[in-house]
């Protein structure tokens, strides 16, 4: 029964959203807009449910003194303090802004800054020349880097042209092929989801809520 109802809802909502995109029907547009707003509201409730899950897992970590439970305790403290300040003083208050601008933003930017080190360590592992793929990777990467770096032009004036050719011909061809394949995959997944054949939504393939 649940599968039939969820299937019917998926079909109706999916078809309305698709038809709204392709056809000029004001009635469909207003319905589609309303449903999009509902999705935002449901997401907000889902965020609350997610927070409860997060809270439960880390409370259990602290209670059972699992590995690095101190980090869980810090997380819980930050959650509670931010929640209290947000609810008590509002999200425009100086305290809330302090938490966001002086604590949260620097942490996010620091994490993003670590990426370059991860890229370097990954590249060092990838450029071990064990097979033809690694050789192709190394040669093409070197040529593109030389083409884009200022000193590359000093070594050989045509390096930028070579780099440009690599990016616009073989690289672009490969990307477009992957995009075409991926787009077909999206169309197939959408079809299965709308028709209720998608297992992750509880379709007849077996896996999913019953």
């Amino acid at each position, binding site marked *: 029964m649940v599968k039939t109802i969820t299937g019917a809802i998926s079909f109706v909502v999916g078809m309305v959203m698709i038809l709204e995109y392709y056809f000029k029907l004001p009635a469909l547009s207003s319905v589609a807009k309303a449903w999009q707003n509902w999705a935002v509201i449901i*997401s907000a409730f889902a965020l609350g449910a997610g927070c409860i899950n997060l809270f439960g897992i880390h409370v259990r970590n602290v209670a059972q003194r699992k590995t*690095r439970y101190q980090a869980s305790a810090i997380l819980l403290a930050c959650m509670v303090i931010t929640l209290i300040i947000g609810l008590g003083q509002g999200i425009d208050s100086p305290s809330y802004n302090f938490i966001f601008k002086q604590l949260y933003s620097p942490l996010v930017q620091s994490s993003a800054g670590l*990426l370059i080190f991860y890229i370097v360590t990954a590249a060092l592992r*990838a450029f071990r020349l064990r097979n033809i793929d690694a050789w192709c990777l190394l040669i093409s990467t070197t040529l593109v880097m030389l083409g884009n770096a200022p000193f590359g032009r000093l070594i050989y004036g045509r390096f930028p042209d070579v780099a440009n050719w690599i990016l616009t011909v073989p690289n672009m061809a490969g990307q477009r092929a992957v995009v075409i394949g*991926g787009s077909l995959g999206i*169309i197939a997944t959408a079809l299965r989801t709308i028709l209720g054949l998608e297992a992750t939504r509880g379709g007849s393939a077996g896996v999913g809520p019953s």
Partner: protein
Amino acid sequence: MRLLCRANSRPTTFMEGVTGLVPGRIAAFVTLVILWGVMLINIRRALGGNLPVLREIPALKAIEEAIGRATETGRPVLFTSGLGDVTDANGPQTIAGLEILGSVAETTASLGTNLICTVCKPNLQPITEAIVKQAYSNAGKPDAYRPDMVRFCSPDQMAYAAATAGIIEREKVAASIMVGAYWQEAMMLAEAGAAVKAIQIGGTARMIQLPFFVIACDYTLIGEEIYAGGAYLSKHPMRLGSLAGQDIGKVIAVAVAVVGALLTSFGSKYLTTLLGK
């Protein structure tokens, strides 16, 4: 063909006037209908017993090997579906990842391996829980499911990446399966897995992140291979049929590209104009 021409309005063509299709989306709609028709025909054929033969995809084959290694070493398997949500443009990639999760969860349930799923978007939390619970139930081990198998980390990208990387490092996962829509956190997660010597299988259809998965992971699912994952692992006829339909769609796309390239080379813009309607 112009049906009517009104003051203060753009002339309406026959197709737009009769069908009400939005200008500029007619060719896309016709393409969608054709592709869906092809997929439905192949799904029907597969459900009738005419199953397509799949080529081997090393990354998908490696999933079973990775879970086996995790079972032998007693370390957990980590699955994460990335930053995408089911409600945005990256929904199909996330759904593809969740299809693979269903098969992964059934395998870990049957082998008694510990499974950890991290989730970025709150919408995915109940969906992922339901998939894992159902998979354990299908494997005949509903009691083996634990609520802390599915962990919501944060809707924020870096917080999610840091949380997942922390779990990988603390739990010393033996296998890390990352399939879905990824942004720059892909590199962080892949390097965290490399640091604990986990077998890593990464997959995404986002072109900009694929190179990072290719260099950092042991196996990579490239683009459409993530959509084949569910069919490959479950061998369900409906998914296999849809995969066959995708392949026919690829043949159609290549044929149109070749014809279009030839026509354009000879100075004809007919196909370009037609596909732009």
